[in-house]
């Protein structure tokens, strides 16, 4: 009869973290940036149907990198949590902080439970406030920790390089077009430092727009509107006004 080898808890955790990190690194990265009128989500996504970004509630958006079936599961859980909260109490009682806590608990439990394999996902939960000071962005790595972020966040494969690029260049009060262009520049940098072109059709873009009159601030940007925003520098300050 074979006796199981002894594996120290440190080693076991390190292995699990390594496994999750590798899984996340295989996927494409995405970035979340604050701009003057809200928060913009930008990622490379060849699929039209499988979204990386989605609406959770009125002011709350969700972004995920990693394995689709795992983050989709978490997304639906988040929508249920938010809708149930809002129905039982009030729409104002649904907050990104509460949601991030639920996600952290779930991810943390799965990560440290020996029965399950760790989730290969990294999430971003963002809430747009009445003013830029009220914006909240939380990053949730695979192990269930929460990182409170400001300005810009990158998750996924090439996250470290992209976020240092963003940190240097991101400014407060950027327009949507400026933020979008910066995000695309950041995403098109490869691991080896070279740059490649990402066509507009391969981009998935969504915003939480605080200027939207409806309660639900989330909207997707695609097609002609996206190409217009990504287009030339001079004309888009004019074209942005008519939105």
């Amino acid at each position: 009869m074979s006796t199981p080898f002894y594996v120290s808890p440190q080693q076991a955790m390190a292995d699990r973290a390594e496994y999750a990190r590798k899984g996340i690194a295989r996927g494409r990265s995405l970035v979340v940036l604050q701009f003057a009128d809200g928060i913009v989500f930008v990622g490379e996504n060849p699929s039209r149907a499988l979204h990386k970004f989605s609406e959770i509630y009125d002011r709350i958006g969700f972004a995920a990198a990693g394995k689709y079936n795992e983050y989709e599961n978490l997304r639906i859980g988040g929508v249920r949590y938010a809708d149930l909260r809002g129905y039982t109490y009030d729409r104002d009682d649904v907050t990104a902080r509460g949601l991030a806590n639920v996600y952290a608990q779930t991810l943390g439990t799965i990560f440290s439970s020996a029965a399950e394999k760790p989730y290969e996902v990294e999430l971003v939960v963002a809430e747009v406030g009445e003013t830029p000071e009220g914006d909240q962005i939380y990053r949730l790595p695979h192990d269930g920790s929460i990182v409170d972020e400001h300005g810009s966040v990158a998750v996924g494969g090439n996250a470290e390089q992209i976020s240092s690029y963003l940190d240097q260049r991101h400014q407060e009060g950027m327009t949507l077009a400026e933020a979008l262009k910066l995000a695309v520049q950041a995403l098109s940098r490869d691991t080896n430092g070279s740059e490649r072109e990402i066509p507009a059709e391969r981009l998935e873009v969504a915003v939480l727009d605080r200027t939207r009159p409806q309660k639900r601030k989330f909207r997707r940007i695609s097609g002609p509107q996206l190409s217009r925003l990504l287009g030339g520098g001079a004309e888009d300050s004019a074209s942005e006004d008519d939105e």
Partner: protein
Amino acid sequence: MDFLSEHQPEILPGNRQLPPTQGVIEAPHGTTIVAVTFPGGVVLAGDRRATMGNVIAQRDIEKVFPADEYSAVGIAGTAGLAVEMVKLFQLELEHFEKVEGAQLSLEGKANRLSTMIRSNLGMAMQGLAVVPLFAGYDVDRGRGRIFSYDVTGGRSEEHNFAATGSGSIFARGAMKKLFRDDLSEADATTLVVQALYDAADDDSATGGPDVARRIYPIVTVITDDGFRRLTESEASEIARSILERRLEQPDGPRAALL
């Protein structure tokens, strides 16, 4: 709702046990709701009165709610239960949209509401009925549609116009005479306010426009641009112009005899 019935059944309206009661339970009731289609959309409107027996329980109750971007519900019947039903209905539509990434079809929304009314049958038997009117813009077919219900959840699609609530008989009569196929959006909004005026004229539980308190009917329009509720000044303008004409002709516009 399936999720709720598994996890928190106590917050769903249909799952409450009622103690047996004698006679009718006194609770505020909402009254008249009318809807009319026009080329390009549908108008849904309601008066502002809630009654409890012979007492006016509330003068400025709101009985027309957006269900989602392209549909609205107007409620007649027990106000408390109806408002809760609408809240749950709104939640379900929004939840479906977020989880599935697509909106329910208008038919699907109407069926869903039907099930919710049916789950209230026990209460309805004790006099706490909820009878809504559902109207929406069918994005696939490109036109406005109206669905009416009975207390058992029976659903039927209405053509051109519909009304529900205590004043509905009078409102329907008015709309029958005023409706035509080529109404503009402005004509349709005037028509529903005329119908509500006639309902208030003959039904004591329906409130007419209250000029002194500036309380006017709620009028909502749903087109391919989505749901829009007329502002107070727009609604007051329609109500005042009707009122002015009725000072000369108290029974309102006359239709041709033949």
